[in-house]
């Protein structure tokens, strides 16, 4: 009863918000200093659309993506584009990708896609490429250079070992806590491509990298990890302004390594525990991160969400839209050169639900 009432209130609220979303939440800038302009893009990630049988899909995950798309459609003025951060499907099936794309087709605006491991390991990205496009690419927009990586590759020996079937490989990679899993990586071939791609870019041009896995090493047992992260970081080092935005972790994370700012995005499907909640292995969650609230399982959408991101002077401000919780905003503080939560960065302003154990 309580759930229904709260869900109703929030939905009604979203309706009302349609009129208030405009200027209060989205900053638009005209011109600005230098060639990089300020603009907004939307980010939806980790939908994990899961087929039960035939045209029957897991309702909970469907609702997460449907809700994100509906809310994102209320953004006014419209963001310049959307990014989908990977794991559209749960087990890489055509039916799941098709169903996910059908929901995504309701999103008004241009959408770019990052591939996740759940989309890849059944057919190694074949269907994805035929329906969506290349697994890595770059583009320029209003003075910012954007690069999308396929960061969920792994050792060829693991990919091509003797699997009973491609679905066995998919299931092995889909299991987050698989002790026989394999670490994500960008791979030498793609690193060469990236190096070439970035050579053409002026060092003062802001660069934003989209990846599914974190291009930093946080927690290997759950692949909150990219094996050759340092090699990607080295290629980004010469740039004055570099940012990496990643999915996969289903939780709020942010970090600063040298000149590179890292932001995670939320899942629309379900939240994941912070690595520190697993007592049998050490985690390296960035100290800068103020955790999201502990999820209340009785609210289906709690600790899930989507985000809109303001490009501001070549750095990003991430606005986490959390349907069953208070929204969070993490902005780049150029004075100290680090991303900060606008409400909770100070230890004394943090609240009990942000403590995970």
């Amino acid at each position, binding site marked *: 009863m309580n759930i229904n009432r709260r869900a109703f209130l929030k939905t009604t609220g979203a309706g009302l918000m349609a009129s208030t979303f405009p200027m209060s939440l989205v900053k638009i800038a005209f011109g600005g200093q230098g060639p990089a302009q300020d603009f907004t893009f939307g980010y939806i990630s980790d939908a994990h659309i*899961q087929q039960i049988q035939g045209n029957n899909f897991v309702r*909970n995950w469907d609702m997460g993506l449907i809700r994100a798309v509906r809310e994102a459609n209320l953004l006014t003025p419209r963001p310049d584009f959307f990014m989908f951060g990977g794991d559209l499907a749960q087990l890489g099936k055509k039916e799941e990708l098709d169903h996910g794309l059908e929901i995504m087709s309701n999103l008004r605006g241009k959408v770019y896609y990052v591939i996740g491991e759940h989309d890849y390991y059944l057919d190694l990205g074949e269907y994805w490429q035929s329906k969506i496009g290349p697994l890595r690419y770059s583009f320029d927009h209003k003075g910012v250079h954007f690069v999308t990586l396929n960061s969920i590759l792994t050792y060829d020996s693991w990919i091509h070992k003797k699997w009973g079937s491609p679905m066995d490989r998919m299931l092995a990679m889909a299991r987050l806590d698989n002790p026989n899993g394999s670490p994500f990586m960008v791979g030498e071939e793609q690193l060469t491509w990236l190096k070439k791609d970035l050579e053409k870019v002026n060092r003062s041009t802001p660069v934003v990298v989209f990846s599914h896995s974190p291009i930093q090493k946080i927690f290997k047992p759950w692949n909150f990890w990219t094996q050759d992260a340092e090699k990607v970081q080295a290629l980004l080092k010469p740039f004055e302004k570099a940012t990496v935005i990643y999915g996969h972790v289903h939780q709020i994370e942010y970090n600063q390594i040298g000149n590179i700012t890292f932001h995670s995005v939320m899942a629309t499907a379900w939240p994941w525990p912070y690595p520190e909640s697993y*007592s*049998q292995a050490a985690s390296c969650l960035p100290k800068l991160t103020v955790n999201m609230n502990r999820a209340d399982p009785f609210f289906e959408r709690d600790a899930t969400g989507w985000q809109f991101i303001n490009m501001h002077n070549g750095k990003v401000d991430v606005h986490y839209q959390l349907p069953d919780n208070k929204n969070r905003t993490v902005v780049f503080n150029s004075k100290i050169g680090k991303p900060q939560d606008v409400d909770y960065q100070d230890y004394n302003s943090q609240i009990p639900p942000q403590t995970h*154990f």
Partner: protein
Amino acid sequence: MRKNRKVFSVSFVVLMVSALLAISFSIQADEFTKEDLERWDTEFMTVVIKGEKLFHSALGTNKVSCDQCHPNAANTHPETYPKFQQQIGRVVALFEMVNWCIQNPLEGDPLPAEDPKMIALLSYITYERRGVPLVPGKH
């Protein structure tokens, strides 16, 4: 009369033998061997592994499994139960929250507390949290 006496003496012998046996058994019960310990550990770990398999399989009707939200059974906090589950409005045991998950996100039927499947799930969940001090009631 004679028959009764015979019954009595047989009963007496049986009683004495049982008493002796009881004494000898109680001596045995006080002691266990390395082999016993190994066996009991193996028995437990067999159930943990069974629990791990169940935790990673579809226990409900929608193919969703426990590990999708709880990798390595993290964020289940067995050390905090029994505790006041504010959403339910009373103090609950861990198996009740496991059943809540089976019924809601997994859209399945609850398991009896003593169901071997439930015991296996609880064994795995608790084993993954080994070494963490008990904090009953903690939210």
